[in-house]
């Protein structure tokens, strides 16, 4: 699967239209007024970045920025979608607690927190972090340094893919404060970007998830309070620090404020990384990736009626869309009006997650595709936890038998049994996410499940 390295549309992506043009800030900087927020710089240089976004404001009152992030409603963009301000506040609180305890016990050294920008992007269908690091590295740096300032860290680390590392090193070399950021290259692998695996990598050089009874915010790298934020989260935070929570919320919906960078791949004319408004209907995003190949700019489709017509036409070749990546869930073609929001996607076992949308065309069998993904996920186990090592291959195997049209009516129930058996029984959420994905394939393709049990396939006959 290749994602064309398409440039996010210069005029912004589909979604609710722009807020009124905000007033210029000092230095003539105008807050971005459309859905195109993160990719406005003409090139990845510091000069182009400064020209568009202006300087980063100083962090004089850490709690003020935490408060602004809270008001913005920004959630993490690495997959889990955890509230960003809560993580910041938790690291602040546990740092204060740790240091108070130290001082009270006569300890001389305080424990400075660790701050990590995570751009490892282990999800094979995601290219948005890499795209962001190559196109807007200075927003990531601004956000990372702001987080460090908020929690009282003097330095920070970027844990990123090989491609991301090259881009980030170039950007860091352009600015004086770049010297405070170390770059660590993450190995390939689905679970290497999981937060405890990141902590393990920085502490022991081994990128596998680790056992934990408390959050990383309390005890992470070398027992220090540790903040791990995805690189898109950091870039969004850098804009909130500049333009404020109200500006952030001026696009998107009440429960999915701001924009989100998504990677659309699979059976679309133009696979691409695209910045969309929070809560944009899935069909609008897919339609934009169909039409872009004809030279049409999705931003020209401002009329919602045109949009719906275009979506209906474009969607005729879609069987289902996998949303949230390999730990996400399938949404069948009839339901693609669903908005890209946590609440609306929950019934499908899906979530906006890291913004992965994989389109299965009408020529593809959903069960076969799902079985291949499940086999891949089973192979991506870090092989530390016995239930994952044994349970995931077992689950993938039963799904592959169903995909291969074995006439065994017990197969679906066995998949459900194994999915329930592995859930909640690993040191990371790899078993849970894999189980959720496999269950969603049984639901989304339920009529095909019946066909397969009779030795037929809805797609292949």
């Amino acid at each position: 699967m290749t994602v064309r390295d398409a440039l996010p549309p210069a005029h912004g992506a589909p979604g609710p239209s722009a807020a009124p043009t905000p007033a210029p800030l000092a230095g003539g900087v105008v807050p971005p007024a459309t859905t195109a927020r993160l990719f406005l710089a003409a090139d990845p240089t510091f000069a182009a970045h400064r020209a568009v976004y202006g300087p980063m404001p100083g962090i004089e009152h850490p709690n003020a920025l935490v408060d602004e992030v809270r008001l913005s409603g920004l959630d993490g963009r690495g997959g889990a979608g955890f509230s960003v301000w809560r993580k910041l506040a938790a690291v602040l609180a546990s740092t204060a607690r740790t240091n108070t305890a130290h001082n009270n016990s006569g300890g001389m050294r305080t424990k400075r927190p660790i701050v990590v920008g995570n751009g490892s992007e282990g999800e094979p269908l995601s290219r948005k972090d890499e795209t962001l690091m190559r196109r807007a590295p200075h927003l990531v740096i601004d956000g990372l340094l702001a987080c460090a300032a908020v929690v009282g860290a003097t330095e920070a680390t970027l844990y990123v893919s090989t491609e991301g590392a090259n881009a980030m090193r170039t950007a860091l070399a352009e600015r004086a404060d770049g010297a405070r950021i170390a770059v660590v290259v993450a190995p390939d692998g689905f679970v290497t970007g999981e937060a405890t695996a990141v902590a393990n990598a920085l502490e022991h050089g081994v990128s596998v998830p680790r056992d934990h009874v408390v959050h990383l915010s309390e005890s992470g790298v070398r027992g220090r309070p540790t903040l791990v934020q995805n690189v898109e989260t950091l870039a969004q935070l850098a804009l909130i620090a500049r333009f404020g929570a109200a500006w952030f919320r001026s696009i998107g919906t009440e429960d999915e404020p701001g924009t989100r960078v998504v990677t659309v791949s699979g059976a679309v004319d133009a696979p691409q990384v695209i910045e969309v408004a929070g809560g944009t209907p899935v069909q609008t995003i897919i339609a934009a990736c169909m039409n872009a190949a004809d030279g049409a700019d999705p931003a020209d489709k401002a009329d919602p009626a045109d949009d719906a017509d275009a979506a209906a036409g474009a969607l005729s070749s879609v069987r289902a869309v996998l949303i949230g990546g390999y730990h996400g869930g399938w949404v069948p073609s009839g339901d693609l009006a669903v908005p890209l929001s946590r609440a609306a996607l929950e019934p499908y076992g899906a979530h906006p997650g890291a913004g992965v949308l994989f389109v299965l065309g009408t020529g593809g069998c959903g069960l076969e595709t799902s079985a291949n993904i499940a086999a891949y996920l089973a192979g991506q186990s870090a092989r530390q936890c016995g239930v994952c090592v044994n349970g995931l291959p077992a689950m993938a195997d039963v799904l592959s038998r169903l995909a291969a049209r074995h006439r065994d009516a017990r197969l679906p129930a066995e998949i459900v049994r194994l999915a329930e058996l592995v859930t909640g029984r690993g040191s990371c959420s790899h078993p849970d996410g894999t189980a959720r994905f496999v269950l969603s394939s049984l639901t989304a393709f339920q009529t095909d499940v019946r066909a397969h049990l009779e030795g037929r396939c809805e797609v292949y006959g």
Partner: protein
Amino acid sequence: MAARRFESTGSTGTLLHIDWTRCDGRGLCTELLGDQLDRDEWGYPLARVDSGSLEARDRSNVPIPADQQDAAADAVALCPVQALRLVPRP
């Protein structure tokens, strides 16, 4: 250690935390805590939980009733791969 800490704090309940990266399914804990732990088909401890929603299940931290605290402390002490510890209920 963990068990002693529990006793000294006088907490009213504990969770048996399973470190899945260490556990290799020897099964001693499932014999000591038969009412709390079953064994799955590969031999790993399986919390006997009521069916709740799948998402809500945390089967790495098993609630231990008061009358099973000693058995749980034994399980922690006797686990050959030190995969268990008692942690206070949040």
